[in-house]
C-alpha cells in the first residue's frame, strides 16, 4: 500500500511543497518572536552567560 502510494506520488512537486512548509514555519516563528511584550524577556535571557560564575 505504502509502496504503491509512494510510487504514484508526484515527487517533482516536493521542493515546492517543502519550501512552502518551511516558509509557513519560518513566518510563524518570526511573528511569535516579535509579539508584543516579549522584549523584556529576551533582554533578561541574553544576560545568562554574563552572570557571575566565578570567572
Amino acid at each position, binding site marked *: 500500500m505504502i509502496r504503491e502510494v509512494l510510487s504514484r506520488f508526484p*515527487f517533482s512537486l516536493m*521542493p515546492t511543497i*517543502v519550501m512552502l512548509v518551511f516558509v509557513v514555519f*519560518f513566518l510563524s516563528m*518570526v511573528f511569535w518572536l*516579535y509579539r508584543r511584550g516579549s522584549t523584556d524577556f*529576551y*533582554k533578561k535571557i*541574553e544576560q545568562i*552567560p554574563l552572570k557571575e560564575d566565578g570567572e
Partner: protein
Amino acid sequence: MNDLTQKPHDESQYETFSYDDNLVKYFIYGTLFWGLVAMIAGVWAALQLADWRFNFGLEWVSFGRLRPIHTNAAIFAFVGNAMFAGVYHSTQRLCRARLYNDFLGRVHFWGWQLIIVLGALSLGMGNTMGKEYAELEWPLAIAIAVIWVVFAVNFFGTLWRRRERHMYVALWFYIATIVTVAVLHIVNNISIPIDFMKSYPIYAGVQDALVQWWYGHNAVAFFLTTPFLGLMYYYVPKAAMRPVYSYRLSIIHFWSLVFIYIWAGPHHLLYSSLPDWVQTVGMVFSIALWAPSWGGMINGLLTIRGAWARLRTEPTLKFMATAITFYGMSTFEGPLLSIKSVNALAHYTDWIIGHVHSGTIGWNYMLIAGILFYMIPKIWKTEIYSIRLANWQFWLATFGVLLYIVSMWTAGVTQGLMWRAVDEAGRLVYPNFVETVIRILPMYYVRAVGGFLVLISFVIMLYNFFKTIQGAPKDIPVEKFKALPLIHQRVVHGEAAHRRIEGLPFIFSILATIAILVGSVVEIIPSLIAQNFVERDSRVGPYTPLEIAGRDIYITEGCYLCHSQQIRPMVAEKLRYGDPSTAAESIYDRPFQWGSRRIGPDLARVGGKYPDMWHYRHMWNPREVISQSIMPSYEWLFKKKVDFEVIPKKIRVMKALGVPYTDEQLADAVILAKAQAEMITEGLIASGVPSSVKDKEIIALIAYLQRLGQDTKERTKEEVVND
C-alpha cells in the same frame, strides 16, 4: 562564594556546588594532542599528492589510508575533543550545576580516546567501511554509539539538575547536536558483519549514496557547525563582555538551521543517478541555508560591536572574530557550490577541498583557539604566557589557511575547466587525464606550504599553552558556588508556551528531533521502499566471488578517495568516460563507490579499457604506464594473498541482503574465485608474470577493475562470441 541567583531568599534554600573542570582539562589535553596529530597527517597527505614519493612505499600510510586517518583525526579527535571541552565547560555554567556524573564524564573521555586510537590503527590496517567520514568498522561504530549515549546521559542529566530555569540558546544547539549525530550515526552505520572488522551496509548503490551523504553533509552540519555555534553564543559574549547582539535572531538562527540543514545532503550527488527531485530538494535547501547561516554570522560579529578595539590586544576575540568571518565565507561558498551549474564545474575538483578546509581550519580551528585562549587562563587561574606568540600563531594560521584555500580554488577551477574543454570539432582538448593533474601540481605544493604554516601555528599554540599551564599556581582550591534550586525559583504566571518548552529539555529535544527527522524521512524513505526509485536493468548482474574480493581490496586501499565511479550526464564526461552512469548499475554495490574526488580519472567504465597486464604494471609502478602519474605504488598487493576462505561468508551476507546469488554459487564460491584467478593469471603468464601471483590480491583487484562498466557496455558480435 558566589550567589548565582542574585535574588534575596532564605539562606537555607541555597545549594552549594562546584564545577567539574578536571574533565574539561582532560578534553583540552585531548584537543591539543589530536589537533597536532591531525595536522601532521594532513600535511603529510598534502605532500603525498604533491610528490608520490612521500608515500614511502608504506602500506599503512599510503594516501588512501592516510587521508581517512587525517579526516577522522581532524573531525572526531581534534574538533570532537574541543567540542566536548567547550560543551562541558559552558553547560555547567549555563545550568549553574555540576555535571550530572563525574564517573560518566571519565568514561566518556577515556572511551572516546580509546576509539580514536583504535580507529587510527584500524584505518592504517585498511579496515574501512569505505564511506567518507564513516569509515570505522562496526565494532568501533557501536563503541561510538555507546560513548555518545554516555555523553548524552551526562549532558541531559546536567540539564535535569540545572538551577537556571531558562535553557540559553547555546544549550539548544548542543541538544540538536547530540540528538542528530546519534540519528545520523546509527542510520548510516547499519550493516551486517562478515567478520570482526568487515561488514556490508544494508543499503546499496543509490540508496547507500543518499544515506551516506545525508550523513556526510550533516556530520559537517551537526558535528562541526551546530555545537560550535552553541559555543559561539556562549564564549563570544563572555569574551566581548556584552550580551549576544540579538537573542531573537539566535532563535531564528537555531530553528531555521536545524530544519534546513538536514535536507541539503543530496547536493553532494548533483548530476548523479540520484532521482532529479531529490537533487533539486538538496539544491534548494542548500541555497536557503544562506539565510540562517549569515544570520548567525552577523549575530556573532555584531556581538563584538563596541569591543573591536580589543581585537588588537586580546587573542581570544581576534581568533573568534576571524572564525566567525570564515564561517560566513564558507557558508556563502557552500550554497554557491550547491547550485547545479556551479557544481557542474566544481564537483570532483579541489575547489571542494578548499571549501571544507576554510570551514575546518578557518572556522573550527580559529574558534577552538579563541575558546582555549579564553578557557585555559580561567580554569588554571593564570594569565596567557605570551600574547606575542599568540599573535604569531594568529597570523601564521591566517596566512596558511588563505594559501591553502586560494591554491585549492585555483586548482579546482583549472581542473574543472580542463576536464570540460571541447574544441570546435567536438573533441576533448585534454583527452589525457594526467595532463589535468600535472597542470595543478604547483598548487599542490602551495597547499602543502599553507598546511605547514597552519601546523607551525598550532605548535606555537601548544608551546604557549604548555608555558601558561606550567606557570599556573599549583593546588588551586576548588571554588564553591551557591544558587537556588529550580523548585524555589519563582515561576512567572502567564509564561508563554515556548518559554515552558524551552524549560523542558525532554520536550524541547523531541521538537528538535522532529525538525531534523522531517527532512530525513521525506528524502530517504522513498529511496528505501518506492519500487520506481531505482530503474532496474536486466543486464546488470552481481559480482563474481573473486570480484567481490577485489572490490574489498579496492575499498581497503581507499581507491574511492581519488577515483569516482559516477559519470555525469555532460558532453565532456561522455567523451572522456562513456555513457552516464545509471542507478541500476550500482544496485549491487555495498557500499557504493561513487567517490567525491577525481585526483585520478573516473573508473565507472574502466573495465575492458586496458588489458590485464596494463593494470598489473600500473599497480606495481604507475609510472611504468603513465610516466607523469602521481599515484602511489601498491607493491604489497603482489605479496599479500587473497583470503579465499572468507569469500563464502561475504556471498552469504550479500545473499541475505537480497543479491541474487544461487545456492550453487554460494557453495562453490571458493572454487569459482580460484578458477577466475587462474584464468587471469594465465593471461598474465604469457607476458612473463610468474604463476605464483595467482592467489595474490592484485589478481582479485584486476578482476574487479575489469568488471566495472562491463554489464551495460554495448558489445560487438565478436565480443559476445568470445565471452
